[in-house]
């Protein structure tokens, strides 16, 4: 077992004919992901890597039975692409695209919350269930099957952490990059909950960053609801002080979200925090 994706997940690639979409479609297929087709408006009827291309997500879903869509379209089309996937009833949407304005994401989120779809990202590396399927841009070779669930706000730092586990012989159930945009889909808590419920996941690694309060909320969730051990790492202990968020921002956030704050919070709920990514395996 694993969470969110496995070898049976039928994946649709939106923006499949673009440079990034095409490159990662190849990588996904090579890894074993069940890519069933792609979407590029105006290119319906073409074929890419042996997969049919459609003009719309709904047409692609009807023809292929896809239950997952991964979004590679440029930022100015990405919100529309997410809304399209939600409208088409795609169960799980993974948005890789970086640079989507936050007001657009607030609209997407408002629609998402009324739907039954799940969204990962945007501006995330996607996810990977070792040996079965990867959806997004994570390099496949860094992971191997095993009992540890990984969830991360940071793209490349996720790879680093997974790689560190694999190097030490510790495999993963699923590695999930939730992305760090201010408004996005699944949160730490959503993923932690799934790992808690997943029979094969024995332990969980959480990779956080400075800024915001998502890690603090995750710590509260772990304290209240998790029986499985969690090890955390927070990047940005030496980060330069951020630009001012303005008074309004400070009032809302209720704090600047420093690494020290987050580490202290995790410690207070019994979550061990690694001092660097390579230390994570030692703490598991």
């Amino acid at each position, binding site marked *: 077992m694993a969470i969110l994706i496995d070898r049976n997940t039928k994946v649709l690639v939106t923006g499949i004919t673009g440079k990034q979409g095409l490159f990662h479609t190849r990588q996904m297929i090579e890894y074993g992901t069940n890519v069933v087709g792609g979407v590029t408006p105006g290119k319906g009827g073409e074929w890419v890597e042996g997969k049919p291309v459609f003009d719309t997500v709904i047409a692609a879903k009807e023809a292929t039975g896809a239950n997952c869509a991964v979004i590679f379209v440029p930022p100015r089309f990405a919100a529309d692409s997410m809304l399209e996937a939600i409208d088409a009833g795609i169960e799980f949407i993974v948005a890789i695209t970086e640079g989507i304005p936050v007001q657009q994401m607030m609209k997407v989120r408002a629609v998402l919350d009324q739907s039954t779809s799940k969204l990962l990202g945007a501006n995330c590396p996607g996810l990977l269930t070792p040996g079965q399927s990867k959806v997004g841009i994570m390099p496949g070779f860094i992971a191997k099957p095993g009992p540890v669930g990984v969830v991360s706000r940071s793209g490349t730092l996720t790879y680093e952490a997974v790689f560190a586990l694999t190097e030490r012989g510790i495999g993963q159930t699923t590695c999930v990059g939730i992305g760090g945009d201010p408004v996005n889909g699944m949160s730490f808590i959503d993923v932690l909950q799934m790992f808690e419920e997943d029979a094969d996941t024995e332990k969980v690694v959480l990779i956080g960053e400075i800024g915001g309060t998502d890690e603090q909320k995750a710590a509260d969730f772990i304290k209240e609801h998790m029986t499985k051990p969690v090890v955390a790492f927070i990047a940005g202990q030496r980060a*330069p002080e951020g630009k001012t968020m303005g008074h309004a921002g400070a009032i809302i956030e209720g704090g600047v979200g420093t690494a020290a704050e987050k580490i202290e919070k995790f410690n207070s709920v019994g979550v061990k925090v690694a001092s660097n990514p390579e230390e994570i395996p030692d703490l598991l």
Partner: protein
Amino acid sequence: MDLHEYQAKQLFAKFGVPAPKGKVARTPDEAAAIAKELGSVVVVKAQVHTGGRGKAGGVKVVKSPEEARAAAEKILGMDIKKHKVQIVLVDPGADIKKELYFAVTNDRAARKPLFMASSEGGMDIEQVNRETPEKIIRVHVDPLLGLREYQVVKMASGMGLAREYWGQFSKIAHNLYRCYVETDATLCEINPLAIVGTESGPMLMALDGKMSIDNNALMSHPDLAELRDASGEPEEEIKAREEGLNYVKLGGQIGCMVNGAGLAMATMDMVAQFGEADGILPANFLDVSGGAGEDKVAAALRIILSDPAVKSIMINIFGGITRCDEVAKGILQALAEVPTDLPMIIRLTGTNQDEGLKIINDANLPNVQSARSFSEAAQKAVAAVKGA
């Protein structure tokens, strides 16, 4: 991207939020000329991307063009929290009856725009929030539905605004929301939104303004992107932004080039972990970000090499959407253009890592070492500085 006060107020006025008709000056003479044009009392205000200018003496109320010239002379060139003042705004003086606070911003946790309105304007709103939070009326806007009139009434009523101003306040609220939406702002803040006496009676006016624009939206708003005033920023950071890189100069000896903000922060932490005891620290934060091609990487290297404090370079790339072969080509391209014999530790892992390492190795550069692990790379980079 933060805007200056004068830019924010010009945008407010464009969207129908009344603001004083001031002008900006870059010299004392210009300030005097504007003061003369405006007549009587004016306010000379430093335009810098930081707070606390009032306490720093960056705001002066004066009564004549001569006084305005003198005030501008003092303020221009002033250093406020490491920001050099290069522009002053000369605003007409206002007959202030009452000061309110009014803002709209993104509430990340609620995933909605949030209005905040308070009768306690003109002062430190964070203090109001700490001491009398009930005096800040908060209203979340449904991003699909937009600001509704009943929400405006809730704010006007909640902050006890006298009824004769409700009509004006409603227009300002709707116009500020339109400003926020149409400029893709992350913050539109008016403090104070003041009741000022005018010839045609008392009216609400934005005497100060702060706006931030979503960086991700600047591509769709070329007119707003042009408002960027980088005059206070380090040259390298400006250059980096032009190349689409995220660079912050830190002052250490190890130049870092990393893909991804999280990994870049972790790299800085790792360098400090091994080097801090010997005073060896990262020279910069540099995220080449996802999908960086060879041109971008070359530009990044050029920026790092332009910092004379850099004694060794650590390149830490974990290829996901970034392909290691492109990174390798970028490094070679940059080195061909900007030759250096500084020690360089390169760690390439992830997508196309073998192709990437082969390109580096085939180039056979004497000052380049490779590293497999993250800590190994950091240790080698620190050792290289020590051995230099």
